[in-house]
């Protein structure tokens, strides 16, 4: 089984302050056509000052100054792929494990980490544009890499990304490859005959089913959510290996053209007003506060319900 895990490196959105979000609200992303609106060092082609410009953003959410992390569902996907690969190796069904990321060099350190963790292949498809809101372009690149370059037969990736979050990328890739696709996957186990036993949280709750490769598995709220960490010795062992860097053209993808046709386009960002009164229910003890709450509102409300 030739496994490919796709991951994305994103700004740590949780580290952005509320004021950043309110500043972004109302901004109109300047370019339509699926151009990403998240701007950061990853969007200017290099890490570090001097290499990118530091002017304030005209559009989108200003994430230039927060650190980069593995997108959370993708991190799950990477560890699940590793565990699957370990299990297959244990059964003598040696799985070639590969990792792919798309974007600026921000993903490079993570790709090196994956090499140190035993991924055999690590590749980055270089794009200048952030593809946060370009699921079709993202999918076109993943599918082209998996199908034409890597010739993988299992693709594991996160069910959704934190910026876009639409969850359509796995299905788009599946369409292009002609593979079936499962989403909201929480566990994957190999069966003796090479098939996979997959657990997922579907529309109607938790299900388990058996999948044959090739297929796409999109990982959702899995209990496995952290990627293991390589030792310095592991890193040393792959010191001389560099991730492959490919251009979209190397995959036969005309990115500019795909982006031109990309849609829907993000036309505006709107803030969310979460403010409510926050009336304090006072009391000396938890009991007194609970009683005050009950008397004031809950009694009548619960009678209605």
């Amino acid at each position, binding site marked *: 089984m030739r496994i490919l895990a796709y991951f994305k490196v994103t700004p740590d959105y949780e580290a952005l302050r509320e004021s950043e979000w309110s500043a972004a609200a109302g901004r109109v992303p300047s370019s339509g056509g699926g151009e990403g609106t998240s701007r950061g060092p990853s969007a200017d082609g290099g890490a570090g000052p001097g290499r990118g410009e530091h002017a304030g953003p005209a559009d989108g959410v200003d994430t230039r100054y927060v650190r980069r992390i593995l997108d959370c569902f993708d991190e799950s996907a990477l560890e699940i792929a590793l565990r699957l690969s370990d299990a297959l190796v244990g059964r003598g069904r040696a799985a070639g494990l590969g990792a792919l990321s798309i974007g600026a060099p921000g993903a490079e350190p993570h790709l090196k980490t994956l090499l140190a963790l035993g991924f055999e292949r690590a590749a980055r498809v270089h794009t200048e544009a952030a593809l946060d809101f370009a699921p079709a372009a993202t999918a076109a690149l993943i599918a082209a890499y998996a199908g034409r370059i890597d010739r993988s037969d299992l693709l594991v990736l996160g069910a959704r990304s934190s910026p876009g979050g639409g969850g359509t990328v796995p299905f788009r890739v599946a369409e292009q490859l002609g593979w079936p696709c499962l989403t909201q996957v929480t566990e994957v186990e190999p069966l003796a005959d090479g098939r996979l036993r997959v657990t997922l949280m579907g529309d109607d709750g938790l299900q388990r089913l058996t999948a044959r490769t090739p297929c796409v598995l999109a990982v959702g709220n899995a209990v496995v959510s952290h990627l293991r960490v390589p030792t310095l010795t592991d890193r040393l062992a792959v010191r001389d290996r560099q991730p492959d860097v490919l251009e979209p053209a190397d995959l036969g993808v005309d990115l500019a053209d795909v982006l031109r046709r990309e849609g829907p386009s993000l036309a505006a960002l709107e803030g*969310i007003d979460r403010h409510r009164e926050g009336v304090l229910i006072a009391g000396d003890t938890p009991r007194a506060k609970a009683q005050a709450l009950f008397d004031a509102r*809950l009694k009548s409300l619960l009678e209605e319900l």
Partner: protein
Amino acid sequence: MRFTVVMDGTSAGAADGTPAGAGEGTADRTADGPSGGIHRRAAALGAFLRDGLKSDSAGASRGAIDAQLAGDTLVFYSDERAKDRLVALAPTRDVRLVRIEARRPERMAALLSARAEGGQTDLFLFAGGPAGTELATRLACRSGGQALSEVLSAETAPDRLSCRRSIYSGHLTGRFELSARPWCVAVDPSWADAGGSETVAHTIVSAIDETGGGGPDPFEDRERMEAPSSEDLAGSSFVVVAGSGAGDRQGVRRIAAAAREMGATFGVTRPVAMNAWAPMDRLIGVSGARTAPALCIVAGASGAPAFFWGIERASLIVAVNTDEHAPIVGEADLVLLDDAVAVLEELAAIVAAEREKR
């Protein structure tokens, strides 16, 4: 503008119909089993047409589309008995029936795509959730149209469809424009609770049988797990949420017990689920359920956007938190500054005592 509402009444191939087990904190709504979800999702489409889709086409004043006449409903179904109930939920007069042996997304997308070829349908509307997203996406890929999932509301214009959906994990809302047709829209799962539309007299304009045409199921040995779904959360009128302020597994259990005592549906924030202090199906927020209860008590959660998204539509939010500066304090209607477990247990005792009295 013409639209087609796609109702997916098929089940994912599990012919067993095992009822979702009622686990910790699961109260109501599991009675009608998994198919209950199918009907709720189907009903959501009517609600979306009525309240979520606006037209600003010239002449007509901005307002609802004439849902009954401007489109039709396509019902995929496997089971004859289930069909009628779905048809009854169709928001349009015209209904087309497609029978298929089980959920086969690729086959269904192919059928839809053939239908889209005529160019008569501008908008295909799908239910929320993974299945609806899959169909919308696959159809857009095949028909050259554009897909958007988790749509909160939409507005038509002559040359495009403008849709709103949550982005950045609940931090912002994005307005997206769909240009190339057909527009393939999967509504936000929270529409499932917006109440169905009025009953419509239906005309079955076509009925085709596609059973056997779909090839084998790419997935085998399906088994529904003995675990509850999070559906009870979406439909509940009273939700109690435990956040990491519950302290530990024991604290979460105690809040869950208090919720049960009060007849509330129990939910948790992501860290609580991630720490395995509660099952993942209890998760509320952008990665879990979106609720719309009359009453929501949030115990020991900070009110992060990704979480708040899941309770935003609650009529009354009560926050119990030890930190007066926690964001949830400004996001709640009523605030109790105290220990989450202590307050919830006291409250449960008061509610129980009141019940005794009557």
